[in-house]
């Protein structure tokens, strides 16, 4: 058996929720419960004694590592610079603007099928999209496009770095090189060789070797 305190420490650390003593005992099957409790107490005491930045606390019926409350300000300072992520609605709206710009709000809504005021506002605030101008049409609708910051965030040199629809289907859909349907789509970039055409070729080139086996299959 490994070093029991170390195992307990790792278990508490890796657990998604506060880890009850019973669960620790269940994992350390065969070890006496009092022995487990004893090791746990010593572990908690050791963290206290060291004045460590983290400590094991009993919360919600289990044990969990937490940072010391006195250090909360430091953690907040760290988290203040945490990168935000985009909501699925914002990502979809952004994708439509990126691929279909210059585009007006009504067109985005036709594609997404819902009102896009909120995600548009968010994207403008995050400076990922911008107003490119207005259209000389009834209501003078605003035209949107992506920004330089958009390129920076997505690590693109220019818009042409965005994958095209053809590549997109290639990336997002499993496909077999032998699938004739997809073969047609891809011929422009990379010629797809069909199984049939290969067999034909092989049989033409080396008739004696193949024909023999063709018969017995």
């Amino acid at each position, binding site marked *: 058996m490994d070093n029991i305190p170390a195992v307990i420490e790792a278990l508490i650390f890796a657990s998604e929720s506060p880890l009850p003593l019973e669960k620790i005992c269940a994992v350390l099957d065969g070890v006496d419960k009092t022995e487990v409790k004893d090791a746990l107490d010593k572990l908690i005491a050791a963290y206290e004694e060291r004045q460590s930045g983290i400590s094991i606390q009993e919360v919600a019926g289990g044990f969990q590592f*937490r940072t010391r409350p006195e250090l909360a300000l430091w953690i907040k300072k760290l988290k203040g*610079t945490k990168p935000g*992520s985009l909501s699925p609605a914002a990502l979809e709206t952004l994708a439509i603007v990126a691929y279909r710009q210059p585009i007006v709000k009504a067109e985005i809504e036709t594609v997404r099928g819902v009102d896009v005021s909120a995600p548009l506002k968010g994207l403008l605030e995050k400076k990922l999209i911008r107003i490119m*101008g207005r259209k000389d049409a009834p209501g*003078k609708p605003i035209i949107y496009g992506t920004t330089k910051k958009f390129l920076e965030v997505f690590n693109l040199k220019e818009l042409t770095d965005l994958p095209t*629809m053809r590549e997109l289907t290639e990336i997002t859909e499993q496909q077999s090189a032998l699938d004739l349907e997809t073969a047609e789509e891809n011929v422009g970039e990379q010629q797809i060789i069909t199984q049939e055409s*290969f067999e034909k070729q092989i049989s033409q080139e080396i008739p004696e070797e193949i024909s023999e086996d063709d018969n017995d299959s």
Partner: protein
Amino acid sequence: MNEELSTDYAIKLDIFEGPLDLLLYLIKKNEIDIYNIPIALITQQYLDYIHMIKSLNLDLAGEYLVMASTLIHIKSRMLLPIPEDPSEEDLEEDPRSELVRQLIEYQAFKEAAEKLAKRPLLERDVFVRSAALPEDMIRSRPEDDELIEASIFELIEAFHNIVARLDNKELLEIDLEKLSLTDIINDVMDRLTRERNLTFEELLGERKDRRRIVYTFLALLELIKLKMVKAYQTAAFGVIRIFPAVES
């Protein structure tokens, strides 16, 4: 076909990662020097394998057939008599050398992949804290110049989801041409917002290569069609000035 051989391979069917992997297996199995492959033997065993898969009605990737024909070609070249007059430029090339190079390279990466898999992998050998920190500990206002973390793949997936939902043919017509046109449209609109109006010459600026001129012209046509810009001319054959269609 050799019965023993076929059962031997049948067990191995799912193991091969491609024709190169199969060849490496055959080389190892026959304890052959990779730098001096007896091509007739290997070709025969390779073809036996392919025919067996076919006889089992299993899918055979096209790559296996490419390799089969390559092997047969090398074999036929090895059988050719030595020419009387060895004056050809490429006479030093062993017909097998390209294949050997490929095999060695593939083997090196196969080993590298195995080495990678032996490292202490996250979620397999080592674990990080998976509990969420209490809300009150982490909530704080993000700074003004908020950082955003997103990958192109997420953007692609988002767009792909939309396309999948709509099955819209028009959406599919996005290619590199359209994207580079959009780059220029963005550029033109940028400069028009800053400078209010510009001539075609001014729009081109320093970069006057053919492609740039054509794309700028196409961008202008597109912008006029979209009613985003207007073009005015003071006199016949006079300079054409481009204005934003609507003052912002």
